[in-house]
């Protein structure tokens, strides 16, 4: 009996001491924290297992806040935690129009001239460090750095050496646009449908010589556009003002090189693309 008493008393005492200690700590040493980090930390398991690769749950929460971690990195909590975290962090997805990536070059292997052969690290940025082998100094180099940058499997290189964006997969993160050293990819709201698929600011004669589908700045689309100022020529290139130009196909009809196109991108979804390849 004595032992039971001793045990109960000593454990109770330890508990009391600990509680006092923690109460004291709670009052005296509390450090003000970002409420968002608090909320995130609360949503995490708190077992500080380190499984996420960060030193404990709080650090992980801070990394989440800074955008250095993915919500699903916590292994201990599993899917529930990921969901909860995503909820807390959740940007109001519904209120924003989706952006998607548009590749503004159609000069692939079949259309554009390559005046030399490039050897070296096979990424687009690396190639731009040397005299690039493509004659057009604005066009896509075709080494797929953008495809590598896409973390959502929303891009692939086609047979013609040009990147394709899958309309159904792209989440509009813009990683591809940032990766492209030639700034060929632009992010656009998905209701933009009319694009000049060329970035060449070379004079028409040269542009035409090196690429069959270059914009040669002939000005026909500018004339055909029903809204004045919808399309303008700037630096030897037709530029569309999407706020003004009607998103239809009236201005593309007379383009001699077919570099201005309407609404082709949305038809490419991931599955129909791969289905077409398989055939």
């Amino acid at each position, binding site marked *: 009996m004595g032992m039971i008493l001793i045990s109960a008393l000593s454990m109770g005492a330890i508990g009391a001491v600990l509680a006092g200690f923690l109460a004291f700590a709670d009052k005296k040493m509390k450090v003000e924290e970002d409420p968002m980090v608090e909320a995130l930390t609360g949503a995490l398991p708190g077992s500080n297992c380190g499984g996420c690769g960060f030193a404990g749950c709080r650090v992980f929460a801070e990394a989440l806040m800074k955008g250095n971690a993915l919500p*699903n990195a916590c292994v201990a909590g599993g899917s529930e935690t990921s969901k909860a975290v995503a909820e807390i962090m959740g940007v109001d997805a519904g209120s924003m129009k989706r952006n998607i990536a548009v590749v503004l070059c159609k000069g692939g*292997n*079949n259309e*554009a*001239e*390559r*005046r*030399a*052969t*490039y*050897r*070296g*690290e*096979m990424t687009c940025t*690396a190639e731009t*460090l*040397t*005299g*690039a*082998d493509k*004659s057009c100094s604005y066009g896509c180099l075709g*080494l*797929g750095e953008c*495809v*590598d940058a896409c973390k959502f*499997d929303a*891009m*692939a*290189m*086609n*047979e013609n*050496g040009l990147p394709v964006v899958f309309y159904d997969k792209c989440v509009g993160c813009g990683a591809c646009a940032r990766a492209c050293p030639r700034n060929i990819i632009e992010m656009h709201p998905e209701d933009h449908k009319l694009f000049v698929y060329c970035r060449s600011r070379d004079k028409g004669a040269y542009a035409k010589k090196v690429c069959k589908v270059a914009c040669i700045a002939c000005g026909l689309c500018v004339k055909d556009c029903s809204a004045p100022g919808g399309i303008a020529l700037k630096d030897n290139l037709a530029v569309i003002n999407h706020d003004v130009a009607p998103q239809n196909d009236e201005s593309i009809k007379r383009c001699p090189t077919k570099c201005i196109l309407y609404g082709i991108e949305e038809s490419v979804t991931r599955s129909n693309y*791969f289905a077409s*390849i398989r055939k």
Partner: protein
Amino acid sequence: MESLKFVRKPKRPLPQNNRITDQRTLDAKEINPNAEQPSQAATRLIVSSSPHFLNTESVPKIMHNVVTALLPATAASVYFFGWRALLLIIVCVVACLATEYAFQKIRKQPIKIHDGSAIITGMLLAMTLPAGFPIFGAILGSVFAIGVGKQLFGGLGYNIFNPALLGRAFLMATYPVLTTTWVWPRTMEKAIDAVTAATPLVMAKFEGKFDVPIMDMFIGNTAGSLGETSAIAIILGGLYLRYKGYINWKLPLGYLGTIAVFSAIFWYVNPAKYPSPLFHLFAGGAMLGAWFMVTDMVTSPVTSLGQWIFVIVAGILAVVIRLFGGLPEGVMYSILFMNAFVPLLNKHTRPKVFGEVKAQKG
């Protein structure tokens, strides 16, 4: 959360594993035949990043030279242990090559077994085994050495530990008795009547005897693993490599020097209890380790200071294990242990950048 992985780039996939392919030439020539050159239509211009001159060294060249350098030791092992030694070497080499081939095939990588590095691993692994070692064990060791020790890290160049030694360490842990069951060399069979032989180091450790004539150890006339017996054959190969410029003198000499100096201290204190430095240099795997394993480029540091630290600590550890450890030989473990430090050494012993004035951050 598994992301789907398909052929992301059909037709002309980006080079896998960073290999530069030459596909572009084909594309340009075939698809765009009228891409004209300003002059000399038949000559194609190449663009690449400088430098445009490269020297003529190549990985296969280096590796094949190492194989050549191992030939004297191979010959010596066959001379001392008979055809069984050759069989063991061949089995290891073939098993290593086969494992490498299988891995590269499974991973759909270009097959690179001709670069010779797996041959070296096989030869060196065999060199660390006793002549009577069973064939199945040799195969197991080779598969582990190449499969786990090298290919799991991504193949040549990425491994952290010396594959041959890892294979040997694995065998040591798997079959401790078989790996330490020695046979006498043919040349001294009738000298001793016992069934199993004892290497000089085993005798030193467990019987306190280290009276094996140094000359015998130098030539290879003692019991031991295939490659640990004939010091002269190994030195010959090592000098060849040094002459060819494939090894840095710091590594073998630093390692051997440390062993000699450190063991000399003990020897000086108590020559009756501790063997002489010469004994340490020529016994066991010290020579093989120093000339062929410490010098493995992949698993040794790249900086000068790092190399010094590597060999000195490894040398001390080898002597400590030999003199005080449970095992008679410490060369293998000393090298493996230091292999694990190589990344840290490389990172923290960077040379001072040209013109660097302030002290390097520690």
